[in-house]
């Protein structure tokens, strides 16, 4: 289905150029987002009544037309491959919550371990919505006024399919890391944790490389091997029963932010970890 413009000129339906290496939605069919908060985010978009653009947006998201997404405080920027050679630039501005509001939120949250632990564990606690409502605001933008969206495409309607595509992918990303919702609303992860009294200033977990150790000149020390742990290889792998380490590690790592590979990362990792386990067992068993 094409469309007619103001001057009665017909535009055939535009086909986007094939994008290479864009972000591909993890969801292959049906809805986007698995967690309740991601679903809530998508609902906001879908409540805008933009009709067929939603469907195209989904297609764009699944086909990898979205080339990049950056989330900053109160502002999201993205690049989407449309029908023109130059990707469209997209900006979504979200109303940041005021410091007073955040302080209120923090105060009511500090009493229960569940908030901090769930957020840190990668989940948005259900109770958070109520807490925000009590503070007189909502976690997700509810009205169009809360959002300012802009796309460099020629389509006049806003939100356009490009914006919709970005919106869907953001939903998936929120699935992975709910703190991104906070960031969108003007609050960083570390800042929030400090606010609720959980920890001091942000530090990156970093292994410090140990300082160089001078070589001893005494032959007795220079050549000496210390006591070795006697279970050096650790426990035997259970190559028959329990699933191999691959699945567990992949699960612990969770989704990759804005994955753009042609296959899924999970499959790749499981294969690699399992093959390595088998090969390593052969090595230590001296085969």
């Amino acid at each position, binding site marked *: 289905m094409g469309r007619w413009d103001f001057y009665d000129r017909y535009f055939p339906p535009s086909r986007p150029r094939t994008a290479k290496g864009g972000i591909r939605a993890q969801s292959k069919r049906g809805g986007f987002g698995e967690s309740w908060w991601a679903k809530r985010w998508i609902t906001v978009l879908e409540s805008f009544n933009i009709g067929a653009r939603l469907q195209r947006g989904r297609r764009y998201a699944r086909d990898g037309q979205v080339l990049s997404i950056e989330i900053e405080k109160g502002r999201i920027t993205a690049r989407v491959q449309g029908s023109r050679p130059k990707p469209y630039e997209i900006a979504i501005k979200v109303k940041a919550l005021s410091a007073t509001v955040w302080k209120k939120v923090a105060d009511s949250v500090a009493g229960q371990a569940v908030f901090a632990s769930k957020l840190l564990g990668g989940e948005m606690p259900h109770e958070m919505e109520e807490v925000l409502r009590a503070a007189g605001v909502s976690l997700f933008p509810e009205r169009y006024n809360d959002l300012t969206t802009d796309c460099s495409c020629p389509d006049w309607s806003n939100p356009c399919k490009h914006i919709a595509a970005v919106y869907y992918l953001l939903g998936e990303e929120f699935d992975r890391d709910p703190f991104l919702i906070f960031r969108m609303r003007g609050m960083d992860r570390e800042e929030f944790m400090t606010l609720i009294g959980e920890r001091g200033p942000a530090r990156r977990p970093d292994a410090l490389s140990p300082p160089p150790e001078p070589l001893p000149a005494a032959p007795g020390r220079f050549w000496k*091997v210390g006591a070795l742990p006697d279970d*050096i290889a650790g426990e035997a792998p259970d190559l028959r029963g329990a699933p191999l380490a691959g699945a567990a590690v992949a699960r612990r790592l969770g989704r990759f932010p804005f994955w753009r590979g042609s296959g899924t990362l999970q499959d790749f990792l499981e294969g690699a970890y399992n093959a390595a386990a088998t090969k390593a067992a052969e090595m230590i068993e001296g085969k």
Partner: protein
Amino acid sequence: MIVLHAAFREDRLLVWAEPEAKKAALLAAVTQLGTGLKFKLRDAHEAVAWLPTQDGQPAPSSALADGAAVPDQDCYLAPHVVETLPLCARQTIAFLTACAGKRIAAPGVLLGDDLSYWTAAMCFCGGLAVRGQFLPTLVRENDGWAARWMPAPTGADAARLEALAKAMPPCARALTWETKDQEPETAAETTLLAFSSFILDHLVRSASAAESRTKESLHDLWLAALASPDASVAAADSELAALAARIEEWQRPIRVASLAPFRLAFRLHEPENGTDGWQVKYLLQGTKDPSLLVPAADAWNRKCAAAFGSDAGALREQLLASLGQAAAICPRVEASLKQAAPEGYPLDATGAHQFLRETAAALEQGGFGVMLPSWWTRRGTQTRLQAHARVKSPAAASAGLSLEALVEFDWEVALGGEKMSRAELAALARLKQPLVKLRGQWVEVDAAQIQAALDFLKHNPSGRATAREVMRMAIGVEGHAGPLEIGGVEATGWVGDLLTRLEGRTPFAELPQPEALHGVLRPYQLRGYSWLDFLKRLGLGACLADDMGLGKTVQTLALIQRDRAEGEGGPVLLVCPTSVVNNWRKEAARFTPELPVLVHHGIARNRGAAFQKAAAEHAIVLSSYALLHRDQETLSRVDWTGVILDEAQNIKNAGTKQARAARALAGGYRIALTGTPVENNVGDLWSLMDFLNPSFLGSESGFRKRFFIPIQVYADRGASDRLRRITAPFILRRLKTDKSIIADLPDKQEMKVFCNLTREQASLYEAVVRDTQAAIESAEGIERKGLVLATLMKLKQVCNHPAQFLKDNSALDGRSGKLTRIAEMLEEALEENDRSLIFTQFTEMGDILQRHIRESFGIEVLYLHGGTPRKQRDRMVDRFADPAGPRVFLLSLKAGGTGLNLTQASHVFHFDRWWNPAVENQATDRAFRIGQTKNVHVHKFVCAGTLEEKIDEMIERKKDVAGRVVGTGEAWLSELSNAQLRDLFALRKDAVGE
């Protein structure tokens, strides 16, 4: 002697040799390891090694490397250019695998201790890969980017990493490619991590299927580079830097966990007396010290941060984050988070069972610590349903003791080791409780399993099997009865007696010593010989593995003698190494002179029918391992009464021709003799047991899977206990340090060790006799005396080693019967961690022995001779007394004869004889002194059929008057008449052992 070492630098393991070796020598040494790797001269490169140095020369790594040990305080660190062979990861794995468990690569090529360190480090990397303790990364590498798999150890693996880093010898990081100005600035942990990345990256990369991947996005490029031999990723630097940051963000949870000083752990608590309340408690567990456990309550109170060397905020954050992650796995954790400071949650029995069965494993896989009650973790043997066979047999077997006799038994079922009647089982199943406290102990109740057990009992209330099968059930060879695991056998009557005796729980009847045996068996020897007889009667093979010197020979001969006395007419085949054929012959002549012995050895040996006929006329046929395969056809013509393997470690490799030939021999009973601790060498056990009791341990590959790999690679206690239980009935090993043995032994025990001459030695011997005989006979007085003594000296040298006689510094191995024998005996002594003194009269022989022992075993050998300065001599004595010091001490008889106190030795070898008992005894007494707490075994080496044996006989005959007759030197020999001398020098045929 050269020593191989290895150091890790950047992306290569650099193998080098000490003392400084040329490229060709280095390559040859590495090649001799049998790695299957091929190297060319151009593969070797110069590097700079920073080594402890004295006067410009590198100090040797041990006293083994040529050069004298340098005291620590005299050294400084200095650079030396050395040739190295840089190995990539694939080559490193092949190289270290070939090094595993060895001290020497080849005679004269020693493997430094640092190589065993690297082998352990490689094993550690393998463990990391097995448990998925690594992550894919994107890192900057020489101006570009590379996709690498990096180690990310957590929990016990983090603790191993730390222990391993601590154990790293500084020499492992002492090589650099740089110029000589700057010594390498390395740290053990950094070096170990780099090495682990190096091995892991190769392992994962090479295991990944190299499928062709589409490369549409940067992410695709990254994955492709992770799975292909080339790790580099080519794209714009800014994009790659952004991707690297994303990857880091993605791995944050695991990185945080692996760097955190603790992890969250869950412990299941049983209900306290009488209540139904189970509890799961949250704890913090130290990453590096898993035994450090702190209840969550203390963490909420910010008390315990110091214990983990962390700040309270970080501690809380991680605890919270971990609980959040665990909540996703276990809903009960989520429920507990409603409180401000959750410490755990309560459970009922069903919940506890679910926790044990499912949640615990899921949490463990999620990277959390889980601690379960010991009755659950031990449940392998403790809480499962098991079938027990209850055997009732008459007090005495009707037709004599036989394993083929049929016995009847009733099946019983036990749960958690407690016998359960059928009614009790049915009642238990009706409880519908997954966990039940049964007679004070928690057990898992699986209704379906109980039903299966009830069905089994209904259809198989009783059974019938041969006593042999019952025995297999009892020691754990036979695993299952229907759906049930067999837990054991309870037996009364003769079967019960049999089992308790087999398992060594009750002593078996001791037999009287055979009448025709000359000499008296010591009490433990009587027990050993009775044990051999007991197993033989049951048709079971036995391995007598007594310590060297306890008299395995005489126990075996007693058994054969008893058999003959009881009417057994057929011959016994006794296979031994060539080096001890003569010793057996002599021992048989001494203890059992009535038993005719046939030596099947040498060129003139019989074959085919002639052999068959000859064998039938003898009680013992002595042969060697070499002939076991070569004369297989001839040997298989005889229906042997028994087959005995001496030094049975000769068949430890099941695949060798001699091992196969040994297993193929048809015969009545089978016995293996060995002085090495067989039960500790799991790898060697299968072949030995399969010879003794065919198919008892199943197939070799099955054995590898069930026992060898779990025990050797993963230190699995359960598997080694099972194996010990299965093999214990067939192995008797007594140590000379056992209290009961010490009481039986004299403090000093002397024995002759009869050796062979090699063909080379025999022809040299005959040449010497030929050349001198006429001269002696035509000479007189002083001249004759001189000639006689000179000839004696030459013949002694020939008996020792051709290289000593020829003084040509030629190769040593395989040219002297004595040298071969002493190496075999030392191997046993070293395996038992015994100390040995070796006396020789000849300085040159001392040199030969030192070189040979060093090069064959890769150990340090002290050598004290007339030219050793006083100061050094005292130091040697001190070092020998040090428990960590060298275990072999060579002494020239004169130098070692006086003023030394060497009571640490338990073996004294007289490699050649000073034909004067007084001098010999004085030397022996170095080791045997007042204050001596252990028994001393004195081994006097004698070449059979040579003048050595004849003079020995002369001394033995006149022992009582020896002091008077032989005086203080060897001069008395020159007083012998020409006829006596001719007889003395003549070489008997049996001297040659080939």
